[in-house]
């Protein structure tokens, strides 16, 4: 085990995979100087500028060329810089990468990882702060990964690079610097396997990415009120670990889903619907969501904070759910 940051854990994962497989390469704007968040720092020195490749500010070409390079036998890791900019390459991701295997009758697959730093990052405003993970879960063909810890960022990125599917890999900008113990060995975390962050008996709180830490803080606070919350980190949204959520709800009878992204049409809705369809009788209270209002993200800190889902919000909702239960 080594203590490292979320950013360095991903860097270690990429470096290990590049050493293992000469067909793995990374491409994106400014990678030669370590990437905008330093998550590639030092890699060009080890692997050279062909495999840690700079790119023109051409998101559609970064994505589209990587689709071609993946179909032609390499395994590109695509850096989108900000998740928001990946929207300049939606055709390349949704119509090309996600569809090629199916519409060409299985003649190819498209093994590529699309790294998209997402989320609210102080005063970055509406075009540099979004969390659009639920969009990608709607697209057949894509895998959607949302790591919350340094260890997961290593184990999931390594799995993503080895996956033959296109993987949308959403790292949260606000937790680049968080530290944690990371296994030194070759860890490969499977997709669709959640992690129980904290065990509890009264209510299940499901989250992912940076919001997981807010959920944990809320669980801590609930404990002081005598409420035992179980916190589940989904880690991946497609596939997602229904079994983990079902067995937790079986135990607690209450489900709260929290995410940083907009509530309307968010992945919380999918989880709520699935649990209602399959576990209605186990529920002691309707499923609740704690997620953002449907407004763009502001620049001024107090306005930005207005739409952030806090631990206090979660505690309040969880408390109501406990009080009004049977």
């Amino acid at each position: 085990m080594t203590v490292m940051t979320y950013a360095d854990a991903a860097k270690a994962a990429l470096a290990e995979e590049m050493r293992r497989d000469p067909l793995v390469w990374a491409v994106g704007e400014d990678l030669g100087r370590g990437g905008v968040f330093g998550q590639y720092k030092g890699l060009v020195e080890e692997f050279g500028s062909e495999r840690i490749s700079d790119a023109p500010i051409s998101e559609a070409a970064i994505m589209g060329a990587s689709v071609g390079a993946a179909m032609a036998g390499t395994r590109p890791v695509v850096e989108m810089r900000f998740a928001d900019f990946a929207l300049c390459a939606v055709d390349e991701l949704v119509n090309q990468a996600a569809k090629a295997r199916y519409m060409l009758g299985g003649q190819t697959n498209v093994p590529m990882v699309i790294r998209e730093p997402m989320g609210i990052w102080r005063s970055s405003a509406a075009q540099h702060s979004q969390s659009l993970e639920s969009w990608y879960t709607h697209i057949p063909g894509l895998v959607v990964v949302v790591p919350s810890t340094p260890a997961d960022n290593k184990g999931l990125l390594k799995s993503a690079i080895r996956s033959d599917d296109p993987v949308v890999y959403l790292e949260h900008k606000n937790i680049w610097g968080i530290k944690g113990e990371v296994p030194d060995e070759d860890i490969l975390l499977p997709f669709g396997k959640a992690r129980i962050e904290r065990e509890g008996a009264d209510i299940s709180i499901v989250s992912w990415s940076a919001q997981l830490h807010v959920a944990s803080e809320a669980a801590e606070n609930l404990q002081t009120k005598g409420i035992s919350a179980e916190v589940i980190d989904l880690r991946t949204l497609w596939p997602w670990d229904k079994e983990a959520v079902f067995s937790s709800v079986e135990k607690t009878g209450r489900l709260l889903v929290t995410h940083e992204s907009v509530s309307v049409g968010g992945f919380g809705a999918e989880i709520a619907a699935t649990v209602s369809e399959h576990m209605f009788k186990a529920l002691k209270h309707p499923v609740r969501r704690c997620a953002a209002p449907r407004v763009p993200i502001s620049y001024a800190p107090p306005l930005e904070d207005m739409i952030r889902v806090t631990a206090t919000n979660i505690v309040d909702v969880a408390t109501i759910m406990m009080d009004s239960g049977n």
Partner: protein
Amino acid sequence: MVLRYDVIAKEIFLSSSIPLNLDIERYFNHHKMMNRIRAFEETAATANADGLVLGAIHLSIGQEAIASGVCQNLEKDDFLLSTHRGHGHTLAKGANPQSMMLELLGRRGGICKGKGGSMHIADFSVGMLGANGVVSANINIASGAAHAIKLKGGNNISCCIFGDGAINRGPFLEGLNWAGVFKLPVLFVCEKNGFASTTVTEAMTSGEGGKQRAQSLGIPAEEVDGNDIVEVDECVRQNIEEIRSGGGPRFILCNTYRLHGHTASDPALYREQKDVDEAWRNDPISKCRDLLKNAGVLDEDLEGHQTDALSEMRAIYDEAKQAPWPELQLAYEDVQDSGDPREEAF
């Protein structure tokens, strides 16, 4: 087939001013391929009219010299990326017309298992990485396939064929710039057939067009008569040589004309019949046939190319009509490795 000559015509030809070093056998083969493409397209149009090809199909009638001239100059391990108007390119790259026709009809044995149809025709076994339903999208993909070649250190190249309308979408700029920046082995071929759907392409294109745009990105570009198989073939051959020897990307603009409507069912009433009649006089297959006839090749053999191609494609169509639909479970296959696509449905 052995080339058979009319001896007197050959003598006259050899003493005329036409280039003496013309490789007659080469153009005889092109003539054959162009006829097979046309016969495939005409048969596909029939199948469309018969109601057996259900989706839109885009015919390349009138553009066969480009398909044959470009694709027959590619090696099997060279990559080809094509367009919605891609049957001819695919056939000339070496794909099996039978599995192509089955795909058009959406039947079992289709080249994409019946899941792609005309606009997603692909045959990876001959390096044909796909037509595309999104105009211009294959330009970036072709540059990326070339990028993979460079990373892996191969001597093959990537070729992307697209229409004159495609130069107005972003991937044209991004993909050509990409190929230039990374000095990739890509041949870009623009089929300037005058139209983008029902619109005259030039009316929606500012500036001088694809060749000048490519040149402005530092990519050597040439323009040829796309209905003249000799011009296309020679230009493509030279450019491919330069690309293979490490010269980076090249661009060729091929002037041609779309003799049929945008889709097989489009009567194309938005243009003047006299323009179409005029264009038919410039039919690339007739031009090639005249050339070969002048060179003394027996006309009955050239005629044979046409009749053989038609009977080949008709037989393929008749067989395809009898083929069953694809197995139903295919709807759930080839989606992705992770997760079960059946979950949470119905």
